[in-house]
């Protein structure tokens, strides 16, 4: 059993100059065979493993990571957590996650710094207002704590926003979810890894998937850079690389992997204590506990696995930031980076079985996967363990692209007349 983290363990270890801390997780060689193998050591993958072990008593399992855990989109995202989605299916999925977030630090005995500072979405034109009000009403009836704010209330909630009616696209109001907020991305991956490892899950880093062995229509095991591993269940949680893995079994997915960029400013003393998003002018910003402004940019329109995007996207985002926060003009960009996001045509994820027995996919989270991490892991674990979806992820199957029963979260098409 791992020693518990607490202020007391810190004091205790201080006396031994912190020489005696245990490893957060082991560094095992892969076994010959596992009950199930999760491909991808990001937040979603590690959470899946954690819940498989915890709730479904599958302890002889492994998480395969070609690089270092949490090194993909988990460690690259802007950590916004909210559940104010339009459709019932999405609301159910994301609010399930949000409820787990609320107790996650204690559950994992690892401070994931879930900070419920609220997330506010702004409206800049009349169609925005209709769409956001529609969402707010839907949220309320789904038991999600979203409220509509008029322009003055927006200003009151976040005073540094430029709410002047004379700017190019004035703020006409916004919707606020107070339970929403941010968390510490690394801590989520590390916390789940530590928790899963404690229950016997093998976390195998620097091990790349090379192929999937099938017998007829069911999986038998995987070829890896560390050799063949036998297993009857494979859960793929590879985000941007999902299609690459799907192609190993000639499976095509309704995905495109595109660059998504983000940036942080130099750290400053607290200046904005909530999360503000604006889809119309494409900018969202929050401030990290370290003091950096964390700013999310948009995606590029082309497929790329380079983890780099075009400068115009960054320029466009900061343009919008300065439109809403002219006071930030002298702030400096400290670091800019990109991730690879796998996007579905309906901007909703896939948590689903496939036509191949024992092969499961959890992908298509696009730009918003982080917020769902605990829920996604929990539901994917359920799907893998029972070979059938939980009712909360039933709608997020691959077949919806055949039937046409999509969960369109683009919001209204916003075509003006």
């Amino acid at each position: 059993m791992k020693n518990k983290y607490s202020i007391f363990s810190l004091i205790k270890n201080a006396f031994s100059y912190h020489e005696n801390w245990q490893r957060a997780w082991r560094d095992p060689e892969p076994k010959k065979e596992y009950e199930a193998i999760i491909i991808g050591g990001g937040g979603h993958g590690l959470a899946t493993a954690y819940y498989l072990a915890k709730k479904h008593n599958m302890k002889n399992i492994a998480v395969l990571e070609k690089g270092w855990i949490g090194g993909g989109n988990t460690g690259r995202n802007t950590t916004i957590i909210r559940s104010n989605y339009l459709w019932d299916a999405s609301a159910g999925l994301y609010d399930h996650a949000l409820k787990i977030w609320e107790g996650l630090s204690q559950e994992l005995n690892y401070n994931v710094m879930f900070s419920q500072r609220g997330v506010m979405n702004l409206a800049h034109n009349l169609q925005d207002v209709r769409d956001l009000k529609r969402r707010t009403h839907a949220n309320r009836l789904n038991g999600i704590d979203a409220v509509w704010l008029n322009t003055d209330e927006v200003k009151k909630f976040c005073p540094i926003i430029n709410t002047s009616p004379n700017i190019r696209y004035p703020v006409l109001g916004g919707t606020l979810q107070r339970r929403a907020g941010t968390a510490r991305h690394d801590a989520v991956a590390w916390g789940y890894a530590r928790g899963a490892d404690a229950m016997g899950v093998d976390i195998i880093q620097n091990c790349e998937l090379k192929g999937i062995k099938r017998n007829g229509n069911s999986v038998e095991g995987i070829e890896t850079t560390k050799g063949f591993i036998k297993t009857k269940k494979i859960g793929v949680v590879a985000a941007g690389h999902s299609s690459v893995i799907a192609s190993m079994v000639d499976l095509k997915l309704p995905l495109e992997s595109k660059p998504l960029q983000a940036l942080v400013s130099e750290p400053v003393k607290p200046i904005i204590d909530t999360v503000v998003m604006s889809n119309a002018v494409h900018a969202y910003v929050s401030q990290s506990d370290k003091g950096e402004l964390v700013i999310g940019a948009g995606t590029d329109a082309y497929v790329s696995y380079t983890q780099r995007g075009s400068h115009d996207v960054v320029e466009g985002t900061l343009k919008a930031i300065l439109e809403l926060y002219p006071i930030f003009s002298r702030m400096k960009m400290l670091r800019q980076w990109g991730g690879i996001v796998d996007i579905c045509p309906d901007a909703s994820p896939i948590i689903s079985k496939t036509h191949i027995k024992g092969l499961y996919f959890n992908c298509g989270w696009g730009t918003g996967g982080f917020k769902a991490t605990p829920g996604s892991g929990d539901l994917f674990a359920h799907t893998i363990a029972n070979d059938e979806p939980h009712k909360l992820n039933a709608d997020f199957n691959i077949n919806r692209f055949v039937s046409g029963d999509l969960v369109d979260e683009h919001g209204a098409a916003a075509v003006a007349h």
Partner: protein
Amino acid sequence: MSKDLRITNNKFIDQTTRISFKFDGKTLYGFKGDTLASALLANNIHLVGRSFKYHRPRGIMACGSEEPNAIVQVGSDASMTEPNTRVTEIELYEGLEATSQNCWPSVNFDIGAINNFFSPLIPAAFYYKTFMWPANFWKLYEYFIRKSAGLGKSPTKPDKDIYDHRYLHCDVLVVGGGISGIMAAKTAAKNNLNTVLIDDKINLGGTTLFQQNECFKINNTYSNEWLKKEIESLNSLKNLTIKTRTSLAAYHSYNYLLARENLTDHLDINEKKDKVRQRLWKIRAKKVIISTGAMERPLIFNNNDRPGIMLSSSIKKYIDYYGVKCGQKISLFTNNDSAYETAISLNNSGVNVNSVIDIRDKTNSIIVKQAEELGIKIHWKSSIVNTNGYKKINSIEIMKLTDDGAAVVGEKIKEQCDCLGISGGWTPRVHLFTQSGGKLKFRDEDNVFLPDKSELDQISIGSCNGDFELDDVIKNSVTLTNKFLNVDNNDYENLEIISSKETTKKNIWLLPSDKLLSKAKQFLDFQNDSTANDIKLALREGFKSIEHVKRYTTTGMATDQGKLSNMHALGIIAETAGVKMGELGTTTFRPPYTPLTFGAIVGRNVGEFFDITRKTPIHDWHVENKAEFENVGQWKRAWYYPKKNESMHDAVQRESKAARDSAGMLDASTLGKIDIQGTDASEFLNRVYTNAWSKLEIGKCRYGLMLNEDGMVYDDGVTTRLGENHYIMTTTTGGAANVLSKLEDYLQTEWPELDVYLTSVTDQFATISICGPNSKKILTKVIPDLDLSDKEFPHMSFKNASINNIKCRVMRISFTGEHSYEINIQSSFGKSVWEKCFEAGKEFNITPYGTETMHLLRAEKGFIITGQDTDGTMTPVDLQMDWIISKKKYDFIGKRSLYRSDTIRDDRKQLVGLITEDPKEVLEEGAQIVSEINKKPVEMLGHVTSSYFSPNLNKSIALAVVKNGKNLKGHKMFVPMKNKTINVTITDSVFLDKDNKRLNA
């Protein structure tokens, strides 16, 4: 300023021009040419900041962008203040004000320093391990953590400065104006290549600029004098553009680079006004030569972070370039030869060098000999095991190293000093190279990462390519440049170069101490306060990859992005984990190289230029007549025309009533217009619209619905057949551009066999819509010679006409359900014709109305607005517009999708009308609709898409999409609001004039 710290004979600083500035409220003086750093040092001020975590006193350490400690808040004006600025990069100007950051009440007495006492309790990443109980207390903990975090303060008022952009295309871009960059630029320009040379300093020359030492000579002159001539010779080259004060921020693929030019920061306060502060150069270079030089490494030993401990090469620059002594009794600590250059410079300037502590066994390179001849004391094979002095170093403790360098032995020598120069060797600046996607290789002998493979057309030369000695730098730069540019420049052949050669190399990443390692404080990342112990803790806890260690300990994540700390972090990881450094790899260097202001990135695209504003030909009239405007895409559209202190509601009610009672007019110029010609025009329309077009007579108009391939409604509008093979299509305002490119896409890629040409003519025409029972009378006045009889000019038809000899197209079409006409005239006369119609209509009280009234009027008739009543999930069937889907046509865009298992469901959400029980009650657009309120969870059947109070029906009306709506006509439903529930009844979506009598009224 304390005179005794200035040396007088100095070429670079104008000691005749005294400049006054404020630091922490105290007025001080420096000279023109000083940086804030050199001026502070000249005033004997080392302590300028406190560290991020432990609030330890920190001083100036370097002389350039790698400075980790000395960052300050510049200016106090709420709109012009700038946080986290390196004193080493601030040029001194009259009126400069700077204050220390992250300390309270003052940098000299900082309460936060209490953290230093608690430091045993707060090792790396301690916060992951605590603050978890009680659960709901995190908000509170976090509040205090956030307060203590952060460094400087954000401005609180909008920036008054101007930023600009400029694109630049060149054959060769040379980054870095040191000796190798200068030679490369000269070579390129002389060979008729359009060349740009940029350097972030005030003047070219790099460190050679002030290298006046017997050990470094070219053709029997000091290297600095030789270089001076080279720099002068650049002026005569016409192909060469030189940009100083310009720092390369980012190197993207396809040789696309961003460079920030500082234009006013060095100017006196009163000279800055109305000038561009920073210009961001967007450079596209055919070839790039990187000559960014190298950074000196610190040494990692116990208490290596005290004010007064500086990089040896920086001490040299302060004395040789700025003429500033960093101390009176200076000691130097090194593992290589370069510290001896500093020693000699200091000695020549009359500064007393206590001693040089060198971890190497005796070496005999000529520069070391020179130092010895000058009588400088050297402690060979020794290390510093501790330093003393809280706010400024006052002494060091020296011990002998064991042969393996793993421990210290013998007696401890204490040496007084007021400044310590440290030199841990050199790190090539490969940041830009890696940003550009280049891969690095590792050179074991001196532990450096060097440029290896690159995807792009570029090279690295000079010390950023691993050449650290003058003759290598020159020889290799010349060869590499000539080969790269494929030229044969012999300017630099057979130069006579004298250069001291380093004969012995030795490196210890983490120097031993007589103290227990875990008790010692050896700082790696000075700004983020991460120590060697933090690295070891991370490794102990299983964080193996450099990325993990970096994130766990925050090493290299401060505002200097680890310029000084990354190598040591890697080194210590390698040593501890027992792996070879080369195999460990390095962290990725991300843009920008140095922090870049948001302002520079955005340029002048702020305020009115944040986004394009499109205006109709009649815009000015709307302004003159006090219209309120609505943003529709990039267009400004008249929203409504309030009379004196009339509310929006009242205005819209008045406009709507007038339009139906008599006459109204609308500026519809924003609608997209696409001219379609070609022999297959009809067939083309058959394929893009859901309905059939072949049989449409010439001179007739037809409404069309366009789908996406997924079967969902995409756009709509009226298309008119002008001739056998000639149509004019109208699209929605917002859809115009997308529709055209979508149609071009199908034409060019799917149906190239079709003979069809599309031309956008949106801006060619002003479109004026006149509607209402009196519209005919008004049009007769405007175009007397046009026969408007229903027989000659029926609904949904078109006529060519002319107004005062200006040709125009008149359509009789209606989006309001009223008898109405649409005049399309070339834009130049749009306003004039609008005014003419307005005049003609006066006797009928013609009323200009805006988009809001238009929306209301069409809603009374149940006409949809794509984007408002549809949201990308509605099929024509859902809209109950089955009539518009041609059953005969074999195919059209999106047809197949209408027959998928989900889209054929009968109980999909369908467009219906809603009537509120209380006719005064106007529903909120976006409100949800349910059949039972008490059921939990309540099932949402749909939502309100459009809702208005109709002055013509004198009741509230709404359009909505409701699950299975078409079978629920007459059913009662509920609209649950936050604090009440509204009773509604589902009705037909046409509220007014169901049998379209008014069209011909």
